[in-house]
């Protein structure tokens, strides 16, 4: 089925919600960005209105945009500092609890990403809600619209510290009882903070500061994807020759 502006999901959403949603369609995946304040009304409409009927909430996850697009290895120009470039930096996995980056600010750092599925229309939609305040990321809870979102919101709270306003039971879910911090935030060390072992003398499980060193083998780089395009062209040539 070919979609015209009237039948495509993006077109229908734009016609129904207007400026409330910022809609993009990439590779047939429709993404709608909206403000936290509009979320509940939009969600209820998406679930109930016959044009949408997104009866299933497939997934909700948190995301932390801190450090988005940052690299440890400059590939644009040649520098004089040589190969040590790769082992310095503050990227994921390179710092411990004491050396974690602090005070770094990024506008619109946290977001909740929601994947919806309409079984009736066989369509998917992705919603993204940015949290306005970094220090207290707040998103309204969708538990009243799709009860199945309960644990997904608990997970996003546990791992990212996003608070879902109106959630009936916002407890940690994946981390340990009594865990401190939100481990999937980009400024939380990959090696963690504490480790746990059984102490035969005290005859109980004890917590200690981690003993492992942070270590990352491969530096994070961003290359212009021109070489990828070139490789595609080469591959096409290769098929023609053979």
């Amino acid at each position, binding site marked *: 089925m070919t979609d015209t502006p009237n039948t495509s999901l993006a077109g229908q959403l734009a016609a129904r919600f207007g400026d409330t949603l910022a809609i993009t369609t990439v590779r047939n995946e429709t993404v709608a960005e909206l403000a936290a304040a509009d979320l509940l009304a939009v969600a209820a409409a998406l679930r109930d209105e016959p044009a949408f009927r997104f009866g299933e909430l497939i997934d909700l996850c948190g995301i932390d945009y801190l450090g988005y*697009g940052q690299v440890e290895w400059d590939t644009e120009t040649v520098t004089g500092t040589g190969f040590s470039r790769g082992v310095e930096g503050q990227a*994921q996995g390179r710092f411990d609890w004491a050396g974690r980056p602090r005070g770094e600010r990024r506008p619109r750092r946290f977001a909740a990403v929601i994947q919806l599925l309409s079984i009736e229309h066989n369509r998917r939609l992705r919603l993204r809600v940015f949290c306005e305040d970094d220090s207290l990321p707040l998103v309204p809870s969708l538990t009243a619209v799709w*009860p199945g979102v309960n644990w997904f919101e608990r997970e996003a709270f546990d791992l990212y510290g996003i608070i879902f306003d109106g959630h009936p039971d916002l407890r940690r879910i994946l981390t340990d009882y009594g865990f401190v911090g939100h481990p999937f935030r980009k400024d939380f060390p990959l090696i963690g903070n504490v480790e746990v072992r059984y102490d035969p003398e005290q005859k109980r499980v004890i917590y200690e500061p981690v003993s492992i060193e942070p270590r990352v083998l491969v530096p*994070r780089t*961003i290359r212009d994807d021109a070489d990828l395009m070139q490789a*595609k062209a080469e591959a096409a040539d290769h098929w023609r020759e053979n």
Partner: protein
Amino acid sequence: MQEIRNYTMNFGPQHPAAHGVLRLIMEMDGETIVRVDPHVGLLHRGTEKLAESKPFNQSIGYMDRLDYVSMMCNEHAYVRAIETLLGIEAPERAQYIRTMFDEITRILNHLMWIGSNALDLGAMAVILYAFREREELMDVYEAVSGARMHATYYRPGGVYRDLPDQMSKYRESPWHKGSDLKRINSWREGSMLDFLDAFTADFPSKVDEYEELLTTNRIWKQRTVGIGVVSPELAQQWGMTGAMLRGSGVEWDLRKKQPYAKYAEMDFDIPVGVNGDCYDRYLVRVEEMRQSNRIIRQCVEWLRANPGPVMVKNFKVAPPSRVEMKQDMEALIHHFKLFTEGYCVPAGETYCAVEAPKGEFGCYLVSDGANKPFRVHLRAPGFAHLSSMDTIVRGHMLADVVAMIGTYDLVFGEVDR
């Protein structure tokens, strides 16, 4: 009059019927469940965070360890997400191999499920039969990847290598020799496809054996019929997919509705249940094994007739062959770059889902253009299913909780991630 109060019972995390490390805090009124609070996360390994610190290809092996009884389906979701962002497509033969192995994986998973679920509900024999066939399919995993379970076989751009010409054989031992050895090796004389041909010709009769043990078994029906009824509305509200949704009569299968790999070319049926109870879900899964068997046969037939490449010839993504690498300078550079730095994936985001044996297994991948993913989120079917536990088991008996855990087909590798 004496006041009778509910009491709280702890179930697990070390309990044979918990299918791993599930802890349930149950509020009981006599033997009836009033409220249940599942505690998960005891197997949390931070897979998604680990993946953010590694080049894309190095995390494929982690995917096997999520749902560790349906390994290659997890890989498939992750690999498809990378391929979507890269804008590449695996060669046709690789797509058929993936389809075939997805179905082998589905049978592996359902065999594990039927065996352990029956064991939980008091039928000892089924697991022994199920593991007999599981072992044969494990050998197929081993033949293509060298590992019985954690295969890391799917790669962005195809599969790691083509199917082997020979199937491994049993060696002579004090327990297997002479005509006995010859009998157990009789399927293994030819290639892997010959072996699968023999296996799939025989497998429907094996499914009949399991059905004989269970389908009309009085105890089995007493434990499953009318237990854990999930209405179609409830299933959708709680984000259920896979057999949990189909058992309630909703005909929804990504292999049919949003086909990937070569499912559009396959001829197979989607079984659906009527009542949405544990028994219907059992029947759905048993029928799925038969349908998977059909798909494997179609793939085997196609793969026999159509040799070809199984990996894209794009050296930015897939390594050159060993021979090329030893002879060609450029190939050597490609190989070195690929295994040290990896490849950069264009900035963007995608959500790719596959119909894993347990339901919809999805991978939400965000790339900022680097050689490592910016965010990987894995949508595990078991996580959504288990969250509905409290709603479904209220009012059931304690023993039915075990039936419910079984019918969810839980594996904590994927629930806890």
